[in-house]
């Protein structure tokens, strides 16, 4: 919609965000297939697909939850309410946008840092999931810092654009 008004960084951010969403969509499909197959094999042959629970919980759910956050930022699709905001005068609106933007950048930035440290430590000890399979899950830890770093960039860029665009 406003795509042609976007400068190059926004086009790039939008492209990254869409890529992340596409990966999340694949993860949704993977949940569908893994659970359906597991149920079918368990019911028909008493031969469940070993590790379905771990694969779905870690390798599918983590990307589904965290990768789309960037596009929520890029497109302003986070759940918020303008019940009061819409009655604000322009100056107050601009201030709201700045406060909200700084807060978002701060939270995503902090989350990027924290989850990066976690990913490093998880990789270092070769983290495995609890349960009978002890499946390695350290690779999925890296999804979080990536998702939060890209969301930080998106929130920052959007704050600048929205501050200018307040009406």
């Amino acid at each position, binding site marked *: 919609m406003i795509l042609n008004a976007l400068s190059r960084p926004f086009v790039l951010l939008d492209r990254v965000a869409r890529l992340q*969403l596409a990966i*999340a969509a694949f993860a949704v499909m993977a949940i*569908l297939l893994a659970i359906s197959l597991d149920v079918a094999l368990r019911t028909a042959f008493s031969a469940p697909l070993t590790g379905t629970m771990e694969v779905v919980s870690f390798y599918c759910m983590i990307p589904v*939850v965290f*990768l789309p956050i960037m596009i*929520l930022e890029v497109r302003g*699709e986070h759940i918020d309410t303008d019940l009061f905001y819409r009655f604000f005068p322009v100056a107050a609106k601009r201030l*709201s946008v700045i406060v*909200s933007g700084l807060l978002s950048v701060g939270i995503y930035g902090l989350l990027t840092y924290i*989850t990066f440290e976690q990913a490093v430590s998880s990789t270092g000890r070769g983290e495995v999931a609890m349960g009978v399979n002890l499946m390695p899950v350290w690779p999925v830890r890296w999804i979080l810092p990536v998702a939060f770093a890209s969301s930080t960039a998106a929130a920052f860029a959007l704050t600048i654009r929205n501050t200018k665009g307040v009406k």
Partner: protein
Amino acid sequence: MLEDITPILVALGALLSLIAIRVPVGLSLIAVSFVGITYEISLRAAIGSLARIPYDLASNWSFSAIPMFLLMGYVASETGLTSGLFRASRQVLARLPGALACSSVLASALFAAASGSSVATASAMSKIAIPEMLSRRYDPGLACGTIAASGTLGSLIPPSIVMILYGVYSDVSIGALFMAGILPGILSMAIYIAMIVTRCKLNPSLAGGGDTAEDEPTVGAGQLLMDIAPLPILIAIVMGSISMGWATPTEAGALGALGAVLIAIAMRTFSPASFWSALKQSALSFAAIFVIIIGGALLTRYVAVAGLNKVLEQLFVESAAGPLMLIAAVSVLYIVLGMFIDSIGLLLLTAPLVLPLAVSLEMDMIWFGIILIKLLEIGLITPPVGLNIFVIKSALGDQVTLPTIFKGVTWFISMDVLTLVLLVAFPAITIWLPEMIYG
């Protein structure tokens, strides 16, 4: 007591302010909880909570049902599977004011009998029913309110995750609890329908301006059956796979989504593009809701470390004079806290305090449990933090605004209060069925 509760009130005030200046709801919850935990314990504890809770919650198997039920709804709506049902219900229920909304309540109740969670029920039904109602010029508030409120039947009509948790905490039979939820669930449904019919009769514009069924040619019985079939088949797949022991309520979501794909293929309405779009929309909606679930879990932790339990203890010591006083106190507490905290978080926070009191007053714990669960479910549709509302908002995007939905559910919240009064006044509604079966 006042000084104990002051930090919590300040935090909730800050939360409301952030939401008012249009900070996303999930980020508002995260920010307030982070500052709150830092204030109560330490920065390290706040960072530790932020490091663990999002990852641990997201990798929780039980949540995998929600993207699957979302997908089922998106596939059904993208491929037009269920539009026929609502066309048919207009023809069959042509004389009933608000027929589409009424059949949506009924469909949600049926769906609730397959799903263990209110959010999952609302997820599936929002994309199936609301676009149909909007395209028939239903009042958006009524359309969204119907699905948000009927979604709460997911926890009241068995199976129900909240009931299992309550059963473990309160030491009552989960099977008996399941039985006990059935009549209150049907009662809630009947009261919703009665309210919808009455309102639409008085004000036909709520339901798209009265009876316009003549706009469309009446179809024959065969076509009618084809129109109706997909949703009952989906519900049958989900319910059937659980009752046959093939799948758990969590896994049944995936079978429902797979069923939607197969039905769409059979009806020749499936296309890879629509499937891909449904997958992307499911991921997007789920992530939008999950940011709020994460924020809600952090807020639950904050109020725990801020000593909410001490405040509650004092509150309840004063009010524990009798069962009705306890129910009144619990109702006020759950309605107030339910504005901010989701149902499972609220149950975890309050059960250790409230349940022993109920036991000491020799209350029927099944009856008390159903009242608690009904109260918890109301919290899913009250502002400012109402998970079912957010499910609908993220499913419909710009088609509706949050204030419209919150306004639309007000009627349903009043009906829930009426249901609660009936459940309290007539315990038999709740305990007759389990007593008959379990003795």
